[in-house]
């Protein structure tokens, strides 16, 4: 049995078309994009062409895009870059309670080490934040509101334009972490009405190690790195040209396939969710049924911890996750699920199935045939421990 991969929210394989597009920039066109000679010029052209393609994809100007090493760096640069650039007038931050740790811990750093005020914007049972809650928190001192477009654990898609309106009313900037959303749903920075937006390549069949941060024209961001004039000094370091080409190509492929992938994955995921909820007793879907990334299914199996389920599925050649891969190994329940008000024991029993282009109904049927007995076996295990001396 070939392994079945249901962890696409953690990462994805690089699309063959993307690999092909990148290869010349690992070989013959290897130049440093900042060099003046022909090697450098060829690399620079590829870099800027990629920037234009990505900008067009999210409807911004090429000059508003800064290449980074990925989602974590983009999020750090957004939160800390805006925080440091505005601290004289605005030293308060609001971030979603269910944000990725790249946002949460950046904000906590500014809070603990630099004296910023910090408020967490609560989420409801389904993972959504309300404009009313944000209105209560945002003040004239708030520098930034950061709320994820689509949640990595539950797939919940937030109403970013509505939240942005509340932030802008106070002159506060709006950032969204769109790492899980870009390439899966339409992402248009003007429709979203955001000032900053993070994206990455490896969640959408692109390479690891490349991402970008959109910063609307005219907004100052203090850099995190120093050492050159690359990326207009906003992010120095020799440009990852092959990565940028890969990101642009991954978005192009995703854009071309978006409608079809969306329809296919919606059907498959709904089939899977319905099958699990109807066939395995005491299971709940965490997060919303509507307004979510259609490829994500976060399901709690009551009375069972997530970890043994994941390991048992791994032994059956099926790859799933409990919450985010960035926090795996932790024995704490997911902060996303607890922020949604789930009891710790329900949160600890959560499994994230994230489907992708390789997923088929046959594979899901196989997973379903294996999953039921595993849950049954784990539930039948006596909770008492072996006798002690």
């Amino acid at each position, binding site marked *: 049995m070939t392994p079945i991969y249901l962890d696409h929210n953690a990462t994805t394989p690089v699309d063959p078309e993307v690999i092909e597009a990148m290869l010349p920039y690992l070989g013959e066109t290897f130049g440093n994009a900042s060099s003046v000679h022909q090697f450098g010029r060829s690399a620079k052209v590829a870099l800027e062409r990629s920037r234009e393609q990505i900008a067009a994809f999210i409807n911004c100007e090429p000059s508003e895009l800064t290449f980074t090493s990925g989602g974590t760096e983009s999020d750090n640069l957004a939160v800390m870059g805006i925080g440091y650039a505005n601290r004289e007038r605005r030293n308060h931050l609001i971030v979603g309670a269910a944000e990725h740790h790249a946002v949460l811990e950046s904000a906590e750093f500014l809070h603990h080490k630099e004296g910023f005020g910090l408020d967490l914007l609560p989420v409801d049972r389904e993972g959504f934040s309300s404009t009313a809650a944000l209105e209560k928190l945002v003040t004239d001192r708030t520098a930034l509101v950061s709320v994820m477009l689509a949640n990595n654990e539950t797939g919940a898609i937030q109403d970013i334009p509505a939240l942005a309106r509340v932030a802008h009313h106070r002159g506060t900037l709006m950032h969204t972490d769109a790492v899980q959303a870009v390439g899966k749903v339409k992402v248009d920075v003007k429709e979203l009405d955001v000032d900053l937006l993070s994206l990455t390549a490896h969640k959408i069949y692109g390479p690891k190690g490349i991402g970008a941060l959109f910063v609307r024209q005219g907004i100052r961001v203090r850099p995190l790195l120093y050492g050159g004039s690359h990326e207009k000094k906003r992010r120095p370091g020799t440009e990852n040209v092959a990565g940028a080409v890969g990101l642009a190509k991954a978005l192009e492929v995703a854009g071309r396939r978006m409608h079809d992938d969306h329809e296919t994955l919606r059907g498959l995921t709904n089939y899977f969710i319905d099958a699990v909820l109807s066939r395995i007793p005491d299971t709940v879907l965490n997060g919303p049924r509507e307004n979510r990334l259609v490829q994500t299914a976060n399901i709690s199996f009551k009375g069972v911890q997530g970890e*043994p389920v994941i*390991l*048992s599925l*791994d*032994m059956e050649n099926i790859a799933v996750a409990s919450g985010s891969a960035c926090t795996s*190994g*932790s*024995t704490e329940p997911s902060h996303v699920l607890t922020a949604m008000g789930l009891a710790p024991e329900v949160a600890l029993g959560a499994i994230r199935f994230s489907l992708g282009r390789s997923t088929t109904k046959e594979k899901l049927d196989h997973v379903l045939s294996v999953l039921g007995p595993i849950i049954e*076996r*784990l539930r039948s*295990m006596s909770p008492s*421990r*072996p*006798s*002690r*001396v």
Partner: protein
Amino acid sequence: MSGGVDSSVAALLLKEEGYTVIGAHMKLWDYVDVGGDIHKDGRCCTIDSITDCRFVCDAIGAPFYVLNLSAEFRETVIENFVSEYRAGRTPNPCVRCNSEVKWDAFLKKADELGCEYIATGHYAFIERGEEGTYRIRKGVDQTRDQSYVLWGVSQDALKRTLMPLGRLLKSEVREIAARHGLRTATKPESREICFVADDDYRRFLSEYEAHRGRSFEPGDIVGEDGSVLGRHNGTAFYTIGQRKGLGVTSPRPLYVQRIDVGSNQVIVGEEDSLYRGELLAERINWTGKKPTADTFDAEVKIRYLHAPARARLVPLTAHSARVIFVEKQRAVTPGQSVVFYDGDVVLGGGLIANIP
């Protein structure tokens, strides 16, 4: 798997015997919590050790998982380690960890994964004796024998435990690892307490307790006649038979004889007084079948590196016994394990009770 050569080879041997093997590393503690030198080689529970496990499991074709048991370990083993020293005893944390954390947690995990057995890299044998009970025997490599720390493991646990290294010498284990190109083949050995990597338990006690806002009470070091000879900075920093670091001058060497927590005194005396003819063993676990005779002979180990001594055992209750040595033994230390053997078979073990 600790990341050392022993558990690596244990996994390899079982794989070769045809078992489906799954590697697991128990993350038991963090240097942040226990202090010490994180850069010392060959230490368990570090990222480097976990990486070593990963490479070994990858090489032998076994899945590998890290199990986080640090909360259980801190509550059950480290807290007990500290309170035992505070109570004037000298604990064997490995014994407690084996019976109260490792086997329990490991078997639970085995059940979750549908595994029939758990395996370890201990130098000891487990075999089915008469009447269906399982018993522990010393490993072939007498210099590595670890049967001493296994007396507390229950029958239920022994029944499902494999120890493939019992029949091997350490040198053979290293040779097997080298032959298979396992990266742990030449890894240095660690024989101290895993969470006290620098082997300085006094440093550990001070830092761990200071971290929790708990201190130690200084008191007197007295002679056997009660005369005050010096000061100590906490009875927990002393152990029976200790000579160095007493800060007491005397024409003849003095040794810690007794620790009296009640009066907060460390009692010292000359070497002759360190020898005792008997001890009381409590919390006994009879590893195989329970003894039926009123009294019987056995060889007895009273610390990890102790040549077994002949003794007569007189069971008092199901879990306690008098141990009467043929020859007096030096530095009988409350809190240490006392393990009874018939040749190379472990009959049982217990803890040395406080000396009245």
